């Protein structure tokens, strides 16, 4: 027993040493990143994700495809097939079809300078050490501001010189940047973007818009992996089964090894 405790303490000390080492190594880098707002969790809120799906087909699906996503998968969000057909089926006529778009990549390139990315798994692709994919999207979609130096007239806080115009501007309104002069490390004054403020109000106020974006991001997260919910539910059962199995095999093993002297 004492031996075991000694070993345990040894392992603990070793782990702490490793964690300390990693911290030191991280400091060497002096990592800095964009600060992302935390996206509200919508994974268990079907109504929110349904609202998000409507925003998605109305505002995103014109330029962005979601070519891994079939319309009838929306049934998983509690939307029945007739509603899908009546309200959401914009780019196709069969509910079993993929959410593709008719815009040609060549035209898109000419209009935006870049082909709008497919959004099927965008929430998973945007994960980074600055935050989760949904955090990124939540901050990004609330970070558009007016910038007349850009071809589209729009810029973004987390994606500088983005090619995408603000698709949701009617809802949010038009934000303008507010600059402040701060002294940099070298003593020189720097003209720095401090925050955004609404210059022209949209149809929603700030709180309403934040909720709408959270819904949309919730939908995008769900669409990134529609089986995620099932995966978690099933996982609990699998772990309970394996826990029981591990207990039984542990006792089975002990009963055989009792006789080994």
């Amino acid at each position, binding site marked *: 027993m004492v031996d075991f405790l000694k070993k345990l303490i040894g392992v603990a000390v070793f782990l702490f040493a490793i964690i300390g080492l990693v911290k030191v190594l991280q400091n060497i880098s002096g990592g800095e990143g964009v600060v992302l707002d935390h996206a509200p969790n919508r994974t268990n809120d079907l109504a929110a994700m349904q609202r998000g799906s409507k925003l998605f087909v109305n505002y995103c699906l014109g330029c962005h495809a979601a070519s891994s996503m079939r319309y009838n998968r929306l049934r998983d969000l509690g939307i029945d097939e007739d509603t899908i057909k009546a309200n959401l089926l914009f780019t196709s006529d069969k509910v079993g079809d993929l959410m593709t778009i008719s815009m040609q990549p060549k035209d898109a390139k000419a209009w935006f300078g870049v082909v709008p990315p497919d959004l099927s798994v965008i929430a998973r*692709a945007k994960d980074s050490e600055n935050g989760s994919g949904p955090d990124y999207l939540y901050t990004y979609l609330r970070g558009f501001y007016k910038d007349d130096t850009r071809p589209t007239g729009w810029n973004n806080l987390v994606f500088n010189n983005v090619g995408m115009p603000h698709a949701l501007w009617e809802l949010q309104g038009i934000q303008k940047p507010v600059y402040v002069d701060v002294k940099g490390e070298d003593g020189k004054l720097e003209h720095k973007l401090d925050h955004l403020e609404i210059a022209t109000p949209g149809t929603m106020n700030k709180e309403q818009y934040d909720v709408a974006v959270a819904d949309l991001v919730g939908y995008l997260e769900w669409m990134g992996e529609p089986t995620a919910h099932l995966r978690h539910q099933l996982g609990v059962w699998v772990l309970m089964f394996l826990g029981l199995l591990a207990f039984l095999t542990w006792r089975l093993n002990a009963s055989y090894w009792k006789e080994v002297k």
Partner: protein
Amino acid sequence: MAFVEKKVSADAPVAEKALAWIDSRFPLTTLWETQWGKYYAPKNFNFWYIFGSLAMLVLVIQIVTGIFLVMHYKPDANLAFASVETTIMRDVPWGWLVRYMHSTGASAFFIIVYLHMTRGLLYGSYRKPRELIWLFGVGIFLCLMGEAFFGYLLPWGQMSYWGAQVIVNLFGAIPFIGPELSLWIRGDYVVSDATLNRFFSFHVIAIPLVLLGLVAAHLIALHEVGSSNPDGIEVKEHLGADGHPLDSIPSHPYYTVHDIFGVSVFLLIFSVIVFFAPEMGGYFLEANNFIPADSLKTPPHIAPVWYFTPFYSILRATTSEFVNFLAAGVVLYVGLIFVKSKLASLWKALALVIGGLLIIGFYTLDAKFFGVVLMGVSVTILAGLPWLDHSPVKSIRYRPDWHKWVYVVFGVAFLVLGYLGVQPPNEARNLVAQVCTFIYFGFFLLMPWWSAMGTFKPVPTRVNFKAH
């Protein structure tokens, strides 16, 4: 010799008759008994001895899930990404589970194999008479790295694409034939459909065939000479009246039930990842790989998957300034061989020639080439262990206490290299990686001397075993 049908009594059960019929034609019973059923293994195995069976389990998981993935996957640059994200992840019932098991299995395989190798290192499992087991094992490790590398291209995401691009380009650093060689590997001027098809072929058939052959050889060699154990004693030196080692027990049923327990615990941990964190924070499935491959858009930071990063760090650490230190290292090492080794003069002359060629090379060829060489050697040097280790005892238990610190420093250097490999490089990190590279190679190259130094503890004649 005439064929003799194995005799069974006329009223024996059908199964017994069938077995006798087979045994007369194929050594089924003998095979089972020599490979497992009556294979006597030391009874003092500890925690570290579970990873062999677990590696076998993961191999089976990878093969079975792989078979099902190939049914739906399309090795075509235009279809590959969608065949994973649309077909397998969404349309095929349970496709997501099969895919996550395969992707998690890849990382699990490396974790297990690294622990399995650590065991070998701690208890001297590679020492005589088990050199061939170790060499087959190194071959398996190389195959595994090939499997992982070729397989990683298949989802055709950004990281797949650019990872393959970077690694294949490394071959371009080889003098004279480099550019043609990397062109030949890719089958195109950039990674493309041609590359994807050949990598698919290597991943699903060529390397698995070699891998399975090596696994069989690894096991046959093991069951021929017998397992080592944490005390590093040859149990066959003390046989009982029945001709079996006194300190051994038959694998079946004792290690069968033992391994079933180990498998249950492993599956528990494996399932936590598969069901609750299949991306494992971007280490098992990288975020960038959810973006389809784009040959015109280079990601700002290309890092290999975690299991390659220690070796990748060594590659990156080899800069043109670092070559000076390498040259100094080579001079000192050749000097050491001349002054301190008992090698025949032919070997010493060979060391001098190789050292001289290296130094000429350091100052005439691109440092990148030596980065590639060091990366290759950092893996293959493992094969030299049975001949580098001159310790009079096998197990770490009976080595001088300070040897344990040598292993700890080596282990930490390896982990630090791994950590640095996933980070974007900067000057300070590079310096740390260079120090760790010296520690890594120093551990192996100086082993003939340090492993024989110090006061060794007396090795018992029989194994340490406490009844459970």
